[in-house]
């Protein structure tokens, strides 16, 4: 039995569809778990992809805390006699999954880009050493918990609808008092799902100059990213940061403007299919990993690039 913890808002999130897709590929019975307010409303959708759906809207699941969710998932995994538990490799998933693994005394595999069954367990691949190394790991244990990197798995296919069960859990309050949440809303395509990304670094020199980044992004339909230097300077919100302490992206094309290409930045974007750099310093490390680039001043290059992209579009 594979248990899949599904993230949702008013529908299943893409991460959940990917986890269910990964579970279908592994083969065997699938139990989808939906926890928290609104779980019931997505149960029918989840049932299209799984043999059974477990729904729990216990009041203690709101607001989300890792401790309470971990107990809920571990209890359900035990009841369902799961041997594999899959969770999203989102930031939230990666603080939840290890707790589930500890509760189940399971083996834990983190942020898998590739998963396959082996006798008595799982073999995965994931990135290590600031994403400079690809590791193959094997876990053989009665229960293996695995978080799966977003945007690495094919989404699930619909099948004969599974059964839906409302379940009761014995939960306790976590003791964490959530004071507030600031959602960083962007009207642009989500950075981690964008097939094109334009990123600005310290070379932009000021927050106003990010109009050059946004201008190009608007013309080609790209997400906007920033380096830590730009975020630390207060020019851009943290949600746009790409790198070790920001987001990991793997778009078709990553356009880095006024970005030097520090290791910590490369660890978040080095797997992009095409890397394009605009930088005035021909020695900038970013050029070593670039497929295309212009050596020049971004203040003259960017307006020209926006014009050329507009011409192509129109």
């Amino acid at each position, binding site marked *: 039995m594979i248990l899949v913890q599904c993230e949702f808002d008013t529908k299943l999130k893409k991460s959940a569809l990917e986890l269910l897709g990964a579970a279908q590929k592994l083969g065997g019975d699938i139990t989808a778990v939906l926890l928290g307010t609104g779980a019931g409303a997505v149960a029918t959708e989840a049932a299209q992809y799984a043999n059974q759906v477990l729904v729990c809207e216990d009041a203690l699941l709101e607001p989300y805390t890792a401790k309470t969710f971990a107990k809920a998932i571990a209890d359900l995994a035990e009841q369902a006699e799961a041997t594999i538990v899959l969770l999203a490799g989102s930031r939230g998933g990666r603080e939840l999954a290890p707790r589930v693994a500890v509760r189940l005394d399971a083996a834990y595999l983190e942020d898998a880009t590739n998963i396959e069954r082996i006798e008595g367990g799982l073999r995965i691949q994931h990135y290590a050493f600031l994403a*400079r190394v690809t590791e193959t790991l094997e876990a053989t244990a009665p229960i293996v918990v695995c978080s799966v990197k977003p945007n690495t798995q094919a989404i699930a296919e619909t099948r004969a609808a599974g059964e839906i069960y409302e379940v009761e859990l014995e939960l306790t309050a976590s003791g964490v008092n959530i004071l507030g949440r600031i959602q960083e809303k962007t009207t642009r395509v989500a950075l981690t799902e964008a097939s094109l990304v334009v990123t600005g670094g310290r070379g932009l020199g000021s927050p106003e100059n990010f109009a050059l980044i946004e201008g190009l992004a608007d013309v080609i339909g790209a997400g906007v990213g920033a380096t830590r230097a730009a975020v630390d300077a207060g020019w851009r919100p943290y949600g746009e940061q790409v790198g070790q302490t920001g987001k990991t992206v793997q778009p078709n094309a990553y356009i880095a403007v006024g970005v030097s290409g520090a290791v910590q930045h490369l660890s978040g974007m080095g797997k992009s299919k095409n890397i394009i750099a605009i930088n005035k310093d021909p020695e900038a490390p970013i050029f070593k990993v670039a497929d295309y680039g212009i050596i020049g001043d971004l203040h003259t290059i960017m307006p020209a690039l926006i014009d050329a992209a507009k011409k192509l579009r129109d």
Partner: protein
Amino acid sequence: MKILCLIRQVPDAEAKVKTKASKMDFDGTTMALDGMDEYGVEQALRINEGGANTIAVALGSNRFEDAIRRALAMGIERAIHIETDTIFDVVSQAKILKAVVLEENPDIVFVGGQHADTDSQALGAALAEALEWNQITWTTELTLDNNQAKATHDVDDGKESLELTLPAIITTQQGLNEPRYPTLPNIMKAKKKELKKTTPAEYGISTSKVQIVAQEIQERARLNKLIDGKDPIAAAEQLIKLLHEEAKVI
């Protein structure tokens, strides 16, 4: 307040990593205290000025001693080194470290938010669960009032602020503080500070649930087609043409 900082030794971010026969080869690679753990060390020293009641704990090979000395030179009072060449899975690590935490009984355990060797974010959460404590991950702001902690931290789609009662696991990252450099007198003093050695076996753990089968460096061959930007308009048109016709990305 008693504070424990988990630390580790990793390849320096600027160092080139290499492999030999599908395994990491650290020969000649400069190693350093993990930058993410440094924020925890710094925060501990800001909470307990002078370093009283701060303890660094490291689980890893004998080479981790350099990272431990660095933390002591920054100002940490004493250290515990659980020495092993085995790379344990995170659930086993949490079992070992839980025993240490229960012996020391701290109010806060700081852990780096993501480690620069395993790229893992799991240890703080795993240890929190083993202890049945709460955790604050990816912490960017922290204030303490007796045994109440208030914090802001990053979540998937923004920021969250929360409060909880200690003890807690707090995972650290950039933005929390600016870690200090050790001063020469403190580097000298660090050599005399207490460093207790122990092994995972003393906590009843000897095997890992996860095996590393292979480690490979997979660098994508890059085209490196660089255009001179002296004529910005011509350069821009050439780049757009390449992206459209050759790379087919726009």
